[in-house]
């Protein structure tokens, strides 16, 4: 497998992520149990959505102590591609791979809808040219309200680390932030679900350019047929 999808107890978008990468984009993908090591030869890792460990204590707070997290840390340190979606984003923030934290939506309710997003010119892969200026992606979360202290926020904005912003804001996120990257540019996190917008029966196909942007280094090294 080239793309590993980490499965924690309580992950529930692991199949969806695997399906979108393997069957739609066409890269070999597989699920890896959180107690197992990250397999050799993996070139990208997706931390999928769900309710890892029931979101007990805080979203992502228990998952960060899972055995696989030390492998993920070294993988990221060596420049490996990591994408956290929804609960995966929360886990990456809890584990310190991304800055900030995600707290309860300001409406105090779960929100599942097709969300309009503004694409930021973050880097050569996530920009208005690669993804389009506006996207619509499904969101489905109760705790997607991004928070960071002033210093972190200033740095994020100064370094163009914001990938996507909500328009309008469904959860009270500071600066309308829906997705960010780390400073090095190999770790990404977002609340919207690109894997739910890749097939003809989905509300739109806007998830495809997002996943392809993340997987670009792999796609360049191994050309594949897009089946969507």
């Amino acid at each position: 497998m080239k793309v590993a999808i980490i499965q924690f107890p309580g992950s529930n978008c692991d199949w969806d992520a695997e399906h979108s990468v393997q069957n739609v984009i066409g890269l070999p993908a597989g699920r890896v149990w959180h107690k197992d090591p990250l397999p050799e030869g993996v070139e990208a890792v997706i931390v999928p959505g769900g309710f890892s460990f029931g979101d007990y204590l805080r979203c992502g707070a228990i998952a960060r102590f899972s055995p696989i997290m030390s492998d993920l840390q070294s993988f990221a340190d060596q420049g490996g591609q990591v994408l956290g979606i929804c609960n995966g984003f929360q886990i990456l923030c809890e584990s310190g791979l991304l800055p900030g934290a995600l707290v309860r939506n300001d409406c105090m309710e779960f929100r599942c809808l097709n969300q309009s997003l503004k694409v930021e010119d973050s880097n050569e892969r996530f920009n208005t040219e690669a993804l389009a200026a506006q996207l619509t992606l499904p969101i489905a979360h109760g705790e997607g309200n991004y928070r960071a202290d002033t210093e972190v926020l200033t740095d994020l904005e100064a370094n163009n680390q914001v990938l996507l912003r909500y328009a309008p804001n469904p959860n009270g996120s500071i600066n309308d932030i829906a997705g960010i990257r780390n400073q090095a540019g190999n770790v990404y996190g977002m609340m919207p679900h690109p894997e739910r917008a890749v097939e003809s029966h989905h509300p739109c196909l806007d998830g495809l350019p997002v996943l392809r942007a993340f997987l670009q280094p792999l796609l360049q090294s191994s050309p594949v047929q897009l089946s969507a």
Partner: protein
Amino acid sequence: METTAAPLPPNPDPCLNVEITPELVAQHGLLPEEYERILGILGRTPNLTELGIFSVMWSEHCAYKNTRKLLKLFPTEKKDKDAIGQVLVKAGDENAGVIDVGEGWGVAFKIESHNHPSAIEPFEGAATGVGGIVRDIFTMGARPVLLTNSLRFGSLESSQVKRLFRGVVSGISHYGNCLGIPNMGGDVYFDDCYEGNPLVNALCAGILRHEEIQKGAATGVGNPVYYVGPGTGRDGLGGASFASRELTEESAEDRPAVQKGDPFMEKLLLEACLEMMSIPGLVVGIQDMGAAGLTCSTCETASRGDSGIEIDLDLVPQRETGMNSYEIMLSESQERMLVIVAKGRERELEEVFEKWDLHAAHIGEVKEGNRMVVRQKGVVVADLPAKSLTDEAPIYDQPATEPAHLAMAREWKVDSIPELGQEAVEGALLGLLTHPTIASKRWIWKQYDHMVMSGCTVEPGSDAGVVKLSIAGINKYLAIANDCNNRFCYLDPYTGAQIAFVECMRNLACSGARALAVTDNLNFGNPNKPEAYHMLKECVKGLADACAHFDVPVVGGNVSLYNEHGEGAIDPTPVVSMVGLIDHPDRVTRSGVKDSGLELILLGGLPDELGGSYYLQSAFNKKEGTCPKVDLDAEMNLQNLLIGQIEEGRICAAHDLSEGGLLVCLAEMLFDAHGIGASVSLPDLGSSGRLDALLFGESQARAIIAVKPEKCDAVIQAAKNLGVSAHAMGKTDDSSQLKVEVAGTSVINSDVSGLKNAWESAIPKHMEIA
């Protein structure tokens, strides 16, 4: 009754060694004659643990003692043996029914009520309702692929009702979202009759290979019996018997009878069980511990397997100390399963549960004979013939008397209602669009994750929810619809139940789906009251006759009686849920119109019946009138036309006429795309000669379709061939206005966005936190 058998030894907990008095028997909800029958079966006095076991197993919830005879009226198999949707597991045989959907795949589905717990503890009651039905589905070996709910509440004017509504929706959202099973919405009605006794019916459907169907039978003497899942606590004690009583002011004191749910545990149990069941030959039998917990799962598996079973309570994982046999056997702690595994392969099961960090405790064995034997601290604390609990519960045929209001409804004359002037049409339409039953339910389903598992194809809010069966790797779509208009069932139970059926099936047809099978949830009042029993009986007859006519079998369901609170019983509410199949993506059809320039065709003729309508409710606050007629043949022709024309690729959108009638149907079709309007002309007032009956009457077997102009003639010809009236009423346009003329006179010219805004904001306005 002579008692000759030797008594059991004293229970290790002295509190349980009490004399079984008539008061104690009555407290357990058992009638004196039922107790006599128990004495006859045992040949001795039961001890307190055994009395508790009988009380839950012989409750209405588990034994269907007041409905078993009636339920036999439902067809449980398809007459046409060549049709798609053959029944693979019949109603009542296992935890859920299973139907064939082709290519070696089956669908397991079932609906179940959690009304009483939700009335007391709305969040936990509704959440554990979802948990229970999901377990029923994966117990069958199926991967759950969708959830829906049928919900009923009192008026949203009441702050108590708002609290219940908010709690129920957030309980369902919390549990289902965490499990990661898409919730496709469902039907929600608001009516004063549900004040204090809301209905919470939860449905789950799952997909499995034919050869993966699991049985809930304990077979093979010597096979070990495992308990899997979290430990047993004192929660939910006697929930099944609690559900078989009327709610009273004191019901809040029954709060310990409401269970506490943990969706994370359920998710682990779901994945572990599916992983275990994928190991060939490992699982002999499996049953979830739902109502009546350990009691029900042990005696039912033994009874189905024609075996005996022995368990030792000292080996049962417990999360509280000092629990006695009565408590352990009657606890309804959630997320637990009983598994009978092939002897010698215990390690394979244990390894799966170790991976998922769940208990897997070897608590007993399948035995020769027919007895269910329970031990604790080396003492036999219960020893009962298993089948006596499952098969020998008394069955009652209650006296039935027709309630007086039914004759009044039949003799009702529409003249008692003042005629509607054309100037009042817009106001009447707004009154209907803002009635919470008709208003947009987005406030509810935006709290449900309906897109997880990547299958959501038609989101909630259309006539039926549709999911692609991507997870099975097949290019088919499962459609689901629920229905039951209590107003019609109240006015005419036989016809009302048929309307629930035909409307549900019509919703599927409008979505392009062929109906396969039904699961029903019969929500009624106290069956010991002859008037309530009459309503139950008539509804079941009506529903059974409709099922037989359309050859759509009932493959499972649930009965919830004793839905009474303060003022009396709820209206009869036989919720009908139907699954249908769409085998090509082009056939997936929505109720909303996306384009201008489409012909709008009314199928089925001009509506002409006002009785029981929501117009009477919203304009006059009346629940009265003669229920609309049901013509099953006309309905079948309409549905064949809809499906046939959808399969021909001629229909762009289809919406059935139901609550609110023609004008509501037309307005709702315009709410999906921005800027769309319509201009429609109706030739005359129709056979009633009344504007209200034409625009807002709820006559059955009707739908509006939108077709491209070049296909219009072909559709009208096809309708003619099937004997369905088809009337091209007008076209959609870019005007953003809804314009309707009747006999050349304009009756409404309204801004669609204003109507939509009223429809969308009605429920949120009620639910805003002041």
